[in-house]
């Protein structure tokens, strides 16, 4: 019985059953013909997410815990020295230098890919969760303030969202050239924030009145597209949807009348500055 001589088609059928990326990588190391088949087959994303374990600043490895395999993997990656590792998607991590170490790069520890982003602003280090699985997200602030902007990436190109919502810069993921700048509609943007989804760029402009706890919110949208000209439109009605704004991303979710969230913006602000313990605000604004 010749396992090494199994036709590529059949090897690939077996590979297709291996759902852990680590199993794939090990498969490639058995022999040459397995290696060829392995390389022509995309490495899967593990079905159960890996946990990225906390690490100290001087560490030069990325540590992961694989739930399904119940083991810890340490992937050497010298670039993470004195850096924060923020947000991940599709195997990519955004690494942001700490203090004097002003660098922003995108790494994929599983393939060894690394790329520097053309950005040397200081970034805030709020971890940001990615809902869509196709974008990289990170807080991006100029100097102070953790409600700066946001940098996010999806396959092909990156978006860099400026602090104070003054512009969105789109950068080609391969050449790292700026290919487009999108500016917000003309209005006082002092309390504005860019929030993104894979389809749209949202600009929310909100005030909180100090004495009573009421909010004034206006929301603008433009399609998140390279082809179309930005056409900001003010949002007054989302009908049977609820808009959830968490960190730097948003999701639109269908909400029935009964749930009470219909036509509502739910906003989640992860951290309040100068608070000893992590805390957050959650507030809702109805368009009706």
């Amino acid at each position, binding site marked *: 019985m010749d396992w090494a001589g199994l036709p590529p088609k059949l090897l690939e059928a077996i590979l297709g059953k*291996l759902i852990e990326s680590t199993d794939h990588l090990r498969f490639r190391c058995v*022999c040459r013909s397995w290696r060829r088949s392995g390389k022509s087959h995309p490495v899967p994303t593990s079905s159960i997410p890996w946990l990225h374990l906390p690490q100290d600043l001087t560490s030069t490895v990325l540590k992961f815990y694989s739930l399904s395999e119940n*083991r810890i993997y340490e992937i050497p990656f010298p670039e993470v020295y004195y850096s924060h590792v923020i947000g991940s998607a599709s195997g990519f991590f955004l690494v942001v230098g700490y203090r004097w170490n002003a660098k922003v790069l995108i790494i994929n520890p599983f393939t060894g890919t690394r790329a520097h982003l053309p950005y040397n602003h200081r970034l805030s280090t709020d971890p940001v969760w990615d809902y869509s699985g196709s974008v990289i997200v990170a807080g991006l602030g100029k100097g102070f303030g953790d409600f700066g902007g946001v940098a996010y990436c999806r396959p092909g190109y990156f978006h860099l969202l400026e602090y104070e919502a003054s512009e969105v810069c789109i950068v080609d993921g391969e050449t790292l050239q700026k290919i487009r700048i999108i500016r917000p509609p003309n209005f006082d943007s002092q309390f504005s924030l860019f929030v993104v989804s894979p389809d749209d760029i949202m600009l929310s402009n909100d005030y909180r009145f100090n004495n009573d706890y009421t909010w004034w919110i206006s929301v603008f949208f433009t399609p998140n597209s390279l082809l179309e000209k930005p056409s900001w439109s003010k949002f007054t009605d989302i009908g049977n949807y609820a808009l959830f704004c968490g960190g730097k991303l948003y999701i639109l979710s269908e909400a029935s009348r009964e749930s009470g969230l219909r036509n509502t913006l739910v906003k989640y602000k992860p951290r309040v500055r100068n608070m000893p313990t992590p805390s957050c605000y959650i507030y809702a604004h109805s368009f009706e």
Partner: protein
Amino acid sequence: MITLISSDKRKFHVLEEVANQSLTIRDVIEDRRGRRRADRIILVTNINSKIPEKVIVYWLRHFLMPEEIAHASMSHKKAEKLKKWEAKFFDTDIDTLNDLILAADSLDIPSLFDGACEKVSDILKNRSAEEVGEISKIENEFTHEEEEEEIPSENAWVWRNEFA
């Protein structure tokens, strides 16, 4: 009745309805319909006699509940039973699995192919390349240089770490 002849000249008589689970055989029968009896003999040259036995056992088990499998309307209990049976069926040495995969591929029996591949992948899971090499008797053919250079830089971390 269909007659299958293995590479070591053993004959297997199978009901046409049973053998129909192989799409290859079904097509052959379809092509030769209405001809003489001799045409109902099918040579399976690339397979030794141990494998047709297993394949026929598999066919018979599945033949007993074809409709239910097709429509996934099997009762929970029956499904459990079939699952247990399949687990036992595929619990065999890796060489037989190799043959089963080849046979299922050439005879075009999707569920058998799938099951055998699944079983092989279970065996490969969580094993280092060395272990896999030992099980499958694949010689480590990478040269010293390749092992030193290319492979470690790509994914040495995959097995360098101990189980938690």
